[in-house]
């Protein structure tokens, strides 16, 4: 169990600000994921926490003890690198016992711990293999076992699954999560894959250009993101520009061009305010017809995705709107050109103040905005 406290952590490289006064409190046994586009500073962040990079300003505390100035070997952490970096001249067993060995543990404790971890990661049969003989997944697991073997209570994962195939990534992330939970550790896991983060983290931090844009539980971040960037980064969303025409304690009504009127359950925006509306494709429902209430349009594209289908609907005078529906057995329910009616429950209509620097900058997924 380790509690982590970060206060105003800043890192500058000349004029480039890699970390800009970030602060966070991470509780005992919490699994925190940090997501963001490449170059947003997430790796710099955990490297500062691990002692691999020295921050320009700010403090880091583990269990109340100040870590600034301490090198990584004195921080009592585990770190799984993006490149994994298994020692090529040692086999799996020697890699895993490296930590206990250099910490001077007694022989039998070392052996016991290594055995246990190799069991948990199902690597026992590969004990004598060298890194070059292992598959990507096995290498990854060895890296995790090695980091956990030295008995640290705080583990850092730096894009641990990046180099793996999609399917293997999905399997392995749950294995890692279960392992960390069974051992009762605190973990900070950085990734660019939001689905990965959502599926295993207790809390998720969204980062952009050195700043924490938003922090929340996966559910909160997905269903009610508080910023446009998070709304766009953590899953897909449709963005419309509009003006609030009515606001009350029960909700707001927003008028977006092209005759589109949406009801939202949000109450924080004021009448006349220019807003951005976000609606996730999977929260919109679609039905055939043209007379009923709702937003009218016609099907532009229809893409089969497996268990779902993604459909782009052209809203006349507005543009394309994406909808995701569960796939109905037996064939497509809609054809290209079909006239459809879209309905969005007010709880899924998210409102944001119109950004001063324009919508496009906020939506830039590479975070250059």
């Amino acid at each position, binding site marked *: 169990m380790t509690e982590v406290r970060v206060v105003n952590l800043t890192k500058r490289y000349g004029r480039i600000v890699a970390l800009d006064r970030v602060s966070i409190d991470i509780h005992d046994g919490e699994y925190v994921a940090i997501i963001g*586009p490449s170059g947003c500073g997430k790796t710099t962040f955990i490297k500062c926490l691990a002692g691999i990079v020295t921050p320009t300003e700010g403090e880091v505390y583990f269990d109340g003890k100040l870590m600034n100035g301490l090198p990584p070997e004195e921080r009592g952490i585990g770190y799984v690198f993006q490149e994994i970096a298994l020692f090529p001249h040692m086999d799996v067993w020697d890699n895993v016992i490296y930590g206990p060995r250099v910490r001077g543990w007694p022989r039998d404790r070392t052996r016991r711990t290594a055995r246990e971890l190799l069991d948990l990661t199902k690597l026992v049969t590969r004990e004598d293999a060298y890194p070059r003989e292992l598959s990507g997944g096995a290498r990854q697991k060895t890296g995790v076992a090695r980091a956990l073997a030295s008995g640290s209570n705080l583990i850092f994962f730096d894009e641990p699954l990046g180099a793996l195939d999609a399917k293997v990534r999905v399997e392995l992330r749950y294995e890692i999560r279960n392992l960390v939970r069974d051992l009762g550790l605190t973990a900070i896991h950085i990734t660019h894959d939001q689905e990965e983060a959502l599926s295993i983290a207790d809390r998720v931090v969204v980062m952009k250009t050195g700043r924490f844009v938003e922090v929340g539980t996966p559910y909160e971040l997905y269903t009610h993101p508080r910023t446009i960037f998070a709304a766009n980064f953590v899953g897909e969303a449709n963005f419309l520009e509009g003006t609030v025409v009515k606001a009350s304690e029960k909700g707001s009504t927003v008028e977006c061009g092209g005759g589109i009127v949406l009801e939202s359950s949000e109450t924080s925006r004021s009448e006349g305010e220019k807003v951005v509306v976000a609606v996730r494709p999977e929260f919109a429902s679609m039905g055939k017809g043209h007379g009923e209430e709702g937003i009218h349009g016609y099907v532009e594209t229809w893409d089969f995705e497996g268990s*779902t289908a993604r459909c782009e609907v052209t809203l006349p005078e507005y543009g394309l709107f994406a909808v995701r529906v569960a*796939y109905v057995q037996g064939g497509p329910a809609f054809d290209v050109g079909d006239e459809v009616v879209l309905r969005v429950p007010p709880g899924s209509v998210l409102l944001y103040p119109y950004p001063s620097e324009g919508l496009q900058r906020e939506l830039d997924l590479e975070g250059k905005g």
Partner: protein
Amino acid sequence: MPEIRLIEVSKRFGRIEAIDDISLEIKNGEYLCVLGPTGSGKTTLLRLIAGLLRPDEGEIFMDERRVNELPAEERDVAYMPQQYALFPHMTVLGNVAFGPLSRGKDPAEASRTALDMLKLVRLHERADALPSELSGGMQQRVALARSLASGAKLMLLDEPLGALDARLRVELRYRLKSMVKNLGLTAIHVTHDQREAMIVADRIVVLRAGRSEQIGTPFHIYQRPENLFVANFVGDTNFLDGTVSKADSTGSYVELRGGLNVRVQETSFLTGERVILTIRQELTSVKAYGWESVNALPGTVLAVRFLGDYLRIEIRLMNGDEVGAEVPLTNINTYPKIGEEVVVSFKPLDVSVYTTPPRGLAKEIEVA
């Protein structure tokens, strides 16, 4: 008339059979995905078609012409490797104009073509930049423009979205496909990501260890996987191990470990045969304890994974088997709790039955 035809093509590296007896036909204007795990031979297949490798056996035809001996520079293809391989010492414009220049166009015309392509990928304002100054997404677009500018009718894309962040990947795959289609090109797109293949492909070839496991439209492969490997690799599937206990005119009963029984609509298996049942996770429902229906297997909730627009609920059945159920977020009123007793239910119609493989299920569906 098919544009590309592979007939019983094989390629060996030393003793390893990288491509093993593959036959394939690709039509003009088709967007084909080659899907498979790392090491399945996807890149080798692409390089064979590109002319960077010679097949050891079999023949390759392009537009009815046998091209086995034709060198890469004379094939009408554009090859985009996974890391893009942008020429680091040339500007963006230089990179994109390389193809037309090599094919004999004069510099002025080559630059014009290059700028046109850069406009298409919306990078014409960075024409004088060096590749090292661009972000990953921009580099990808330059690589794409370079391939398009060559004027080739066939695009060979090796994990074109692989080096990008997950979110960017999702965003760009639609654009990639529509760009290729709008220009009327044929494309072979290699990937290990089945979701990507599902969305962009007209047809998919599933590859494993150099062999093609199944060829078909995304719909076809998803609904009717021909074997367990494909059933596991594409989509999220539950596997249950059992023996056929009774068969009648409308279906059969399969007995699982611990005496649980599952009703299926299959009639072609004999009593006593060992089989593997597969059910898609989105067709698996989680019901309250006590629920009764044709297939209602009691179990306990192991984990609830939030995946954005849906939940995956992992359940351990009473007999120890583990299954997963995908439930759209909109269908959930209350989250099941870990440890809660529930009932797993699915329709007999949704169950597929396969003969148990001799090597066992784990080996058969092994991906890593």
